[in-house]
Structure formats: structure tokens, C-alpha cells
């Protein structure tokens, strides 16, 4: 069991999500940076499918009731076991009853914490991920929660040190046009690829909203709802693009001008971060 002394405002349980149910209206969900969570799991000897915590911006404070090995990946942050400082990207031993403090990130937004045995809340449709859009999975973590831990997975692979990736000041995203770039003026795609955008403060696990040159439509009217993918750049009526992240809806009624190859950088992009888009050919 892990007691949550201070949850922070947006800490959730995440794993690799629940793909395979989009045709029933069930979002994929899962960690915004699945590779970072998988790395944390590897550092403590968990399988990559184990659930951990996704911690956003303000850190959190936890107290395990049994001795555990934990690992934090993603944004660099101050980590302490009792008074002893620890490192991001490295397994840490936390004695039973000791307090694990994860501070706010020095740069970036989100960290992933794995605990040996994994967070063992009840799975829903094969996943323990909190889906903030549909409400499937456990509710977001709150102060006073007691999170169950699974059985000890055995000794981890002999990897005890990893590099904490730097968070760039400017995020460069590769964009492939379509499927509905023909709903926009020829100028729109040009604007998206040639002018910088900034991350809006109104962003969450559903999508990263961007602010910048509006993308004008060539086709008026409503697009009949159609399936959307992770990384889809949807353009609502105000012309400001939104990049879909893990909790995106399964279908959308606004045209998608292009799709971003890799959205994991957006998981660390604070409001105000500059984002530029580039075609895949460069």
C-alpha cells in the first residue's frame, strides 16, 4: 500500500492505456509518454504494462507501508526519501513508512513514478489508466488515498542509471498533412508549417491547445464525425489548432489538418513554450 500524503492537482494512475475499444467510443488513455513510464518500470523490475503514477507540475508526497523500490522518469525534479536526496532516472529504495517527496519539475511538466509490483488498482477493460475524458479507470489521485501495490516482481534488469532527457525551449514537431487538409485554404497549411505557435495554458491530457496564426477554412459547415488518432491536429471554429493527446475522444467533428508523428514532447511543454511544425521530408 502507498499512502498519498499530498497528491498534487493532476496526479493520475497510468499504464499503456486501453487500445482496441475505439469502435465502442472508449478512448485509448494511458501515460502521455509511454516510453518514460516503461523505463521507470524497467528500473524497478516491473513489466512494461505495470501501472505507475503520472505526476504533473507540482510534485507529490507519498508514504509506502512496505519497503519498496521506486523510480522516477520524465521531468527532472528534486526527489527525497526522508531527508536523503535521490536521483531521477535511478532506482531508489524507500523503507516502509519513509516519506517519498517528489518536488516540482525543474523544467518540463510531468514525471512518471514506478513502484516495484506496480499500482494494483482494479483494471478496467484491461487497463488501470485514469481516463480524464470518459471517467473510465480510477479517479485522479487525491490526498489520503491508499493505493494498493502488486506483488514484488523480482530483481530488476541490471540497469541502474539512465539519462534524464533535457526539455527543449522550443518544441519541433513533425507533421504529416491530412486527412482533411483540403478543408483549409492553401495558405493554412503554409501558416502552420512556417509560423511558430505557443502552448496555451488551457491544455490537459485530452489535448495541447496552441495559440498562433489562425488556420482559415476553405470548406464551411460541419464535418460529419469521424475517427481521430493520437497526434491529430484538429482545428475548431476559432482556427486555433489543438493536438490530441492520450485521452482524446474517439471521434471528432472538426477537420484534422495534419497528424503529429510523436506527441511525447508535448507532455513536457509548459504553457508559453514555442512549437514549430515541420513536414516529414526535412
Amino acid at each position: 500500500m502507498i499512502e498519498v500524503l499530498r497528491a498534487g492537482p493532476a496526479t493520475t494512475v497510468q499504464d499503456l492505456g486501453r487500445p482496441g475499444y475505439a469502435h465502442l467510443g472508449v478512448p485509448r488513455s494511458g501515460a502521455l509518454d509511454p516510453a518514460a513510464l516503461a523505463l521507470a518500470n524497467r528500473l524497478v523490475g516491473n513489466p512494461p504494462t505495470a501501472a505507475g503514477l503520472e505526476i504533473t507540475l507540482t510534485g507529490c508526497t507519498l508514504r509506502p507501508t512496505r519497503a519498496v523500490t521506486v523510480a522516477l522518469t520524465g521531468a527532472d525534479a528534486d526527489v527525497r526519501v526522508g531527508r536523503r536526496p535521490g536521483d531521477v532516472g535511478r532506482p531508489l529504495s524507500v523503507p516502509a513508512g519513509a516519506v517519498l517527496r517528489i518536488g516540482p519539475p525543474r523544467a518540463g511538466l510531468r514525471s512518471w513514478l514506478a513502484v516495484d509490483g506496480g499500482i494494483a488498482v482494479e483494471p478496467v477493460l484491461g487497463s488501470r489508466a485514469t481516463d480524464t475524458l470518459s471517467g473510465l479507470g480510477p479517479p485522479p489521485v487525491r490526498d489520503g488515498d491508499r493505493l494498493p501495490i502488486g506483488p514484488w516482481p523480482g530483481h530488476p534488469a541490471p540497469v541502474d542509471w539512465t539519462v534524464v532527457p533535457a526539455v527543449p525551449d522550443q518544441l519541433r514537431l513533425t507533421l504529416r498533412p491530412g486527412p482533411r487538409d483540403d478543408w483549409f485554404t492553401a495558405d493554412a497549411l503554409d501558416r502552420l508549417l512556417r509560423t511558430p505557435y505557443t502552448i496555451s495554458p488551457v491544455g490537459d491530457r485530452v489535448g495541447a491547445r496552441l495559440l498562433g496564426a489562425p488556420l482559415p477554412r476553405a470548406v464551411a459547415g460541419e464535418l460529419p464525425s469521424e475517427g481521430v488518432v493520437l497526434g491529430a491536429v484538429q482545428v475548431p471554429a476559432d482556427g486555433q489548432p489543438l493536438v490530441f493527446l492520450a485521452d482524446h475522444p474517439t471521434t471528432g467533428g472538426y477537420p484534422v489538418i495534419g497528424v503529429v508523428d510523436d506527441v511525447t514532447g508535448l507532455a513536457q511543454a509548459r504553457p508559453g513554450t514555442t512549437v514549430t511544425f515541420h513536414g516529414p521530408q526535412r
Partner: protein
Amino acid sequence: MRIRPVGRHALLLDCDNPGQVEAWRAELWRRRDDGELTAAEIVPAAATVLLDGVPDPATTAARIAGWTPGPTATTAAVRHVEVPVAYDGEDLPAVARHWGVDVPEVVRRLADTTFRVAFCGFAPGFAYLTGLPERWAVPRLPSPRPRVPAGSVALAGPYAGIYPTASPGGWLLVGRTGLTLFDVHADPPATLTPGTRVRLATA
């Protein structure tokens, strides 16, 4: 039908009509079951079918272009669900005005229609039901209700739908059902899956 690329791992089949969507949905699900097609998700919608989690979309697109969707599934393979509906929705008079008939006639028409689940979206287990003639399409409310109770049976555009859980909603309410529409312990978790035939029978 036109195939549009979607990012690195997906394809969108842009269909000419809803019948073609259903035919491709059934064909692609069958081919995936038979091991001829790899796709993590095959998601029908109003006028499209999305394939996501496709390892090699260009090759897959070329193969799909060579396929012809067969006749839609035989009667025996189609799921049928009868939904018991209490027709007491507060927007029945509004629907009656749109259709130019009285309320009992609205109820009779809805109860007599065999619907088909065209696709799911909006929320887990929310099915868009087709079967009403296009000329009976109704507009949404100008501003959505903040809370529509679970089990509400409602109309919007050419579709009928049932809210699986309480949520905000702008559809016109015609009735309610006690049937569970989404159960995470059931397989499949949604009662109304794409292709299912549905009757909204008077309870």
C-alpha cells in the same frame, strides 16, 4: 470510396454513403478476424472508417483498394437488441412539430423502426442509430442541457441515440430505458456495437 493517409500508422476510408461505411466496416472486421489485415482499431463513423495502428499503411491502402466489400453479414450473424423504452421524453412535442404529426404518431414511428448502430462515439457505449428517413432529421437544442440522465433516448440530426451515462447533451429527449448500455465487466462492454440491429420498443 477514397483512402486518405492519416499520420504514420492510420488510414481513413472516406465513403460515398452510410451503406458503404457499414459494408466496409463489416468487410474490414471480417478480414482482421481472418488474419488478412492488421489494425489495432477499426472505427466506423458517419461517412468514414478509420484504421489505426496499421504497421504499413501504404501497402495496406493498396491492398484495400483491390478489395470489394461483400454483401453485409447474413441475418444469422447480425446481433439484434430490443430496447424497452418509456416514451415520455420532454421533447416529444417538439419532435412532433418538426415531423408535422402528433405525439402518438412520433412514438409509433420510433417503435416501428428497425435501427442499425452506425457507429459509437461521444462517450463509451454511445451508439448513433440510423434508420429514420433523412427528411425526419431534427436539430439539436440551441444550448445543451447541463445534465441528461443515463438511459435517455434522444434524437439529433438523422440519428437516434441513448445516453449510457448521465452527461451534458443537446439531443431532443423522446424517452428513457432501464437497459444497461455500457458495462466494463461485459464482453463486449457496449450493448450496442456497430452493425447491431436495434428496436426501440414501447416498454
